[in-house]
């Protein structure tokens, strides 16, 4: 697929050359290669701080790249099969927001599943776009929300032919993919753009045993969290576009909110990681796939746990499944996912990605070792032996279909009043409530607060979920529309 020589890493090479020049810094950053901040230098090391430099002619400028960053972006675009790739240093959150801001102006409609990450709904507050929510499918046995079914998307398009875009998770946090190919076909038929949140899908671009990537299927934009499965530094990300969008316009949108002091630590990590994936992605993710398969088999042998995988595929709202994901359903041993998550960390020194009401998710990557995966399996076996409980009275549902009363932007900026959360039933919420991770809102601004939702929040709190989003940091009070 690559047309360029993926062996290059222009930003890395430019930084290496720059270090050799021993240029005397009378520019920012003020730590001056770390000499002005010894404690930081001792902690992060000289190699790190001498690469923490400012934009300058030999190193290009992220806001308007013309040389090495431009070249690195072209290489990334080539590796991902996109018309252009933007280096992003404000997280995939900014990539997702830039996608939505690029395709929707105030008042425009965007079709999206409700189980999106908060960054997508935040973009609606910024842009003033109106969401047309498609309720995701549900698997009631394991209590997770799935992808969107094509017929639901078709219905949303038919009812909203003026929609500007469809946003698709490819995949969801749990690794579930919608039928993106068909969604792209029916959307494009009506002139509607398709943008993909691929925060959990970087690896799809580099291994042929995984679900198809958004760009390969003809999506118009995709946000790719290189720092998740791609191995780059936290907060670095790519925004990919096809030739249906103007690179210059998308750059302008990005520059509305992106720093003008782009970090070369983040950019070089993107450059190096892109090269690594382009050259070795197939073998790297083959290994991760094997690790995950082995771990699932061993976990399922313990009994009580259900480590699920591509057997969930049903041709519709689970059109495909990311088999590198290690998700485990825990309710049958009488423990909420969040309880297993806490036990793993507090009792066994094992940190996993998240635990929610019924499931845990362990993130596997190229950095894993077989013996560490064995530790996880052994600890799960021990948790079952020592903590297994009766499962009656446990909540099963991860997702409650919302009643949307007004747009997120209108609700967020409306006159509001703060109420004790237990007295808020029936009111319209003006802020987010979510467990973080995974960061999928239980309530978003503009949605009706129901008894079911309050029960869910109180159960999540009781089990130890970390609730965020509300102005009140303890989530004891909630802002509702006056």
């Amino acid at each position, binding site marked *: 697929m690559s047309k360029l020589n993926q062996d290059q890493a222009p930003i890395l090479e430019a930084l290496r050359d720059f270090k050799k020049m021993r240029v005397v810094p009378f520019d920012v950053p003020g730590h001056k290669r770390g000499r002005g901040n010894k404690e930081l230098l001792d902690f992060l090391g000289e190699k790190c701080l001498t690469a923490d430099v400012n934009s300058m002619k030999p190193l290009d400028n992220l806001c308007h790249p013309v040389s090495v960053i431009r070249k690195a972006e072209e290489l990334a675009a080539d590796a991902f099969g996109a018309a252009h790739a933007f280096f992003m240093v404000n997280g995939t959150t900014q990539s997702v927001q830039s996608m939505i801001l690029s395709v929707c102006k105030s008042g425009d409609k965007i079709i999206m599943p409700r189980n999106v990450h908060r960054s997508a709904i935040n973009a609606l507050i910024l842009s003033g776009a109106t969401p047309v929510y498609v309720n995701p499918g549900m698997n009631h046995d394991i209590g997770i929300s799935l992808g969107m079914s094509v017929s639901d998307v078709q219905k949303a398009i038919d009812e909203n032919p003026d929609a500007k875009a469809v946003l698709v998770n490819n995949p969801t946090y749990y690794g579930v993919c919608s039928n993106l190919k068909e969604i792209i076909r029916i959307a494009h038929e009506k002139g509607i753009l398709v943008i993909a949140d691929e925060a959990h899908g970087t690896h799809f671009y580099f291994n042929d045993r995984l679900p198809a990537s958004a760009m390969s299927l003809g999506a118009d934009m995709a946000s790719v969290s290189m720092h998740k499965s791609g191995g780059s530094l936290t907060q670095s990300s790519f925004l990919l576009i096809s030739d249906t969008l103007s690179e210059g316009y998308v750059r302008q949108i990005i520059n509305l909110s992106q720093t003008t002091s782009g970090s070369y630590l983040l950019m070089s990590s993107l450059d190096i990681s892109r090269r690594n994936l382009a050259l070795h992605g197939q073998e790297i993710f083959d290994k991760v796939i094997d690790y995950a398969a082995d771990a699932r088999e*061993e976990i399922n*042998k313990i009994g009580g746990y259900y480590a699920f995988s591509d057997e969930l595929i049903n041709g519709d709202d689970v059109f495909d499944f990311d088999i590198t994901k290690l998700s485990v359903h825990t309710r049958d041993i009488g423990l909420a996912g969040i309880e297993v998550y806490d036990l793993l960390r507090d*009792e*066994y*020194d094992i940190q996993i990605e998240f635990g929610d009401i019924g499931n845990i998710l362990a993130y596997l990557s190229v950095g894993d070792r*077989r*013996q560490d995966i*064995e*530790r996880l*399996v*052994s*600890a799960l*076996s*021990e948790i079952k*032996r*020592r903590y297994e409980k009766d499962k009656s009275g446990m909540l099963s549902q991860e997702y409650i279909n919302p009643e949307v009363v007004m747009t997120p932007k209108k609700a967020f900026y409306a006159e509001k009043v703060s109420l004790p959360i237990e007295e808020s039933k029936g009111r319209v919420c003006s802020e987010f409530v979510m467990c973080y991770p995974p960061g999928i809102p239980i309530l978003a601004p503009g949605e009706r607060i129901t008894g079911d939702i309050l029960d869910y929040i109180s159960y999540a709190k009781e089990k130890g979920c970390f609730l965020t989003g509300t102005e009140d940091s303890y989530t004891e009070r909630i802002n509702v529309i006056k």
Partner: protein
Amino acid sequence: MELWFTEQHTKNVNFSIKVDRQLYHAKSEFQRIDIFDSPEFGKFLTLDGYMMLTDKDEFIYHEMITHVPMSVNPNIKKILVIGGGDGGAVRELCRYETVEHIDLVEIDEMVVAACKKYFPKVSCSLDDERVTIYYEDGLRFIRNKKNEYDLIIVDSTDPFGPGEGLFTKEFYGNCYKALNDDGIMVNQQESPFYSDDAFAMQRAHKRIVESFPISRVYQAHIPTYPSGHWLFGFASKKFHPVTDLNMNAWNMLSLKTKYYSTKIHVGAFMLPNYVKELLESVE
């Protein structure tokens, strides 16, 4: 020409042995394996540059990790040794006619092959018909065992590298599960002296205390290990290592040992005050 093997016991302390020549070097899937010959200690084995055993002092470690549990419960018949691919612990255990079966689980087949070739006096019982060798991760092996062994000996490397999983709470919990009601677990437990080793020793002790009703620590002097002061853990479901010691029964066996005796056994559990404090602070 002078050739020296040096191991850093701490960032500020080196331990060096004059080497005559290197006999073996290999890189396995798990670690770097080296065997040297030396004037003072004879042949010695290092893994990733860390001293594992020498001809001269291996008897201390291997006698103390085996005879202590064997003399507390003379009815031990089925044993699991985890790590210990050199065969030293198995050699001592095979001296008991009452032992019926030993499973040895060593992650690194190359260690066993190298020891068979270069340390025949240590590995001599690995071919005993009562011994079955499994080449796999000890943590994985034991996870599937329940109520099966009378004794588990954890003859691990250090709590970093391939031996890391053998110092974890999930491992000790799985050992508990794999032992029967009379079960005893003995483990090598690092040194109390240098702070990094002491920290690892305390962590291991804390996790064992959380996993077993009885958990005591004993010591031996091993010249080639950091500080020379080495600890072992004795954990069990039922037996106390000193009050349940059956001195007469063991002495009747007339096993000839160079370090272990039933008196050393009792004495080994008498720990220096600073070590007692380190242990009590995590109990």
